[in-house]
């Protein structure tokens, strides 16, 4: 009874979920938009539709914080605030979150069954994204940019005296290029090529079948380049974009899934996130569906 009274009592304690104005809504074909609106808008837009059961505290507290978190990371009502490349990236990330079952949040679809994304819906979303992929030979601007960068690098003009450090204290590790590659990826969602390197501890763990979980001290470095397609269909690595690290230490990095995360952009190795340590949330959110694989996407190739 006390519990019940408390339950009624706390109904009056509720954080506010205002609906701010829509500055520029998601622009996609109608069938795609209908799915996204139905499955995602309650948490990722300014048109939150709170039904009666969402308004019961403490369900409401959970919902309010989901809306706040969801909106902060991805807001389809403020779509115009993202650069076109970032809009595209968010759509690919979204479909992958759906495929992995991470989104819409399972705790939400358990109650809002109508928000579930059916296999047919997923087909519509996949076809739409696949239709945005275009393969064409590189234009002169891309070729020139790559050439210019190459010449600097070849003459060793990109060597860095003081190691840049990300907001979470992780410094750029120049030795990554001497590590062994454990896999490569062609990313046709964002037109890049990638090589994933593993340090000695990671490579030893692969040889010894000891990667579940990965041992402390294992480090991955993933390098991304722009794609440079020539006329006979071969796609080479163009401009160097960034190098990203995951450093395993289940104690030191316990609060970030046991991994230290950092990304350094351009040959100048500019730390991503600037002074804001919250950049790691972005890394973690996207790697979260791989929790059963110790948050690692790559399947290493043994030799």
């Amino acid at each position: 009874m006390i519990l019940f009274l408390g339950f009624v009592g706390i109904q009056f304690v509720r954080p506010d979920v205002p609906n701010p104005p829509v500055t520029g809504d998601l622009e996609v074909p109608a069938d795609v938009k209908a799915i996204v609106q139905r499955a995602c808008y309650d948490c990722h837009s300014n048109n939150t539709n709170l039904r009666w059961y969402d308004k019961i505290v403490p369900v409401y507290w959970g919902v309010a914080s989901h809306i706040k978190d969801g909106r902060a990371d991805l807001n389809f009502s403020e779509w115009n605030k993202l650069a076109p490349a970032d809009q595209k990236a968010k759509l690919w990330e979204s479909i992958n979150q759906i495929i992995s079952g991470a989104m819409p949040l399972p705790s939400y679809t358990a109650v809002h069954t109508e928000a579930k994304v059916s296999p047919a819906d997923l087909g519509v979303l996949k076809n739409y994204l696949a239709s945005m992929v275009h393969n064409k030979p590189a234009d002169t601007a891309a070729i020139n940019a790559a050439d210019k960068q190459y010449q600097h690098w070849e003459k060793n003009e990109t060597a860095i005296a003081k190691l840049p450090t990300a907001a979470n204290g992780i410094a750029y590790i120049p030795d990554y290029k001497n590590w062994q590659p454990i896999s490569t990826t062609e990313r046709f969602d964002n037109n890049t090529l990638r090589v994933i390197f593993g340090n000695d501890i990671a490579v030893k763990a692969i040889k010894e079948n000891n990667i579940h979980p990965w041992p402390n001290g294992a480090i991955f470095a993933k390098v991304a380049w722009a794609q440079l397609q020539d006329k006979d269909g071969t796609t080479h690595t163009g401009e160097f974009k960034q190098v990203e690290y995951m450093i395993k230490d289940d104690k030191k990095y316990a609060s970030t899934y046991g991994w230290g995360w950092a990304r350094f952009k351009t040959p100048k190795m500019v730390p991503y996130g600037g002074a804001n340590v919250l950049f790691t949330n972005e890394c973690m959110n996207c790697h979260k569906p791989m929790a059963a694989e110790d948050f690692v996407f790559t399947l290493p190739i043994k030799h």
Partner: protein
Amino acid sequence: MKAFYSLLAACALMLAACSDNKPVELYNTKAALPSSPKYNLDGLKVITSFVNKTKGTASTLYGNDLALKAAIEGNKIIAAKEVFTLVTWKQQDDDHWFGAKIPSDVESVEVIKTASSGNNVAVNYEQLEGRNLDLKTDTSGQAERIKYILGQKPSVLP
């Protein structure tokens, strides 16, 4: 009170959703390279990586320190003791990321080794093919492959 029970039901569902055990695939077994005395990637560095979208293949060119240095200098001079190894895989869709392709079955491993012979440098080329990395006995087209491999521009790795 009914709402409270549906809340409990929702919590139970949440817990259930977290405990489904899907089998975890940890290695790319398809793309694994069988060990062979004919090639050795240990200690070799990445020179570059490329894909062919028409053929659906992914390749990585490896080299020892001398080969990497020569490649950065445009392979204008071929010196002795350089080792280049080009591994080519078929591609497959990445099950973990819609929007990515990763290596699948090995198609070939091509090895170039240079050695001094008198006043010259001899360039030896071998191609290993297929799953079992059998030595290709047909030697036609070798000169072209050597030219192609030595013509690859290294990837910028700052």
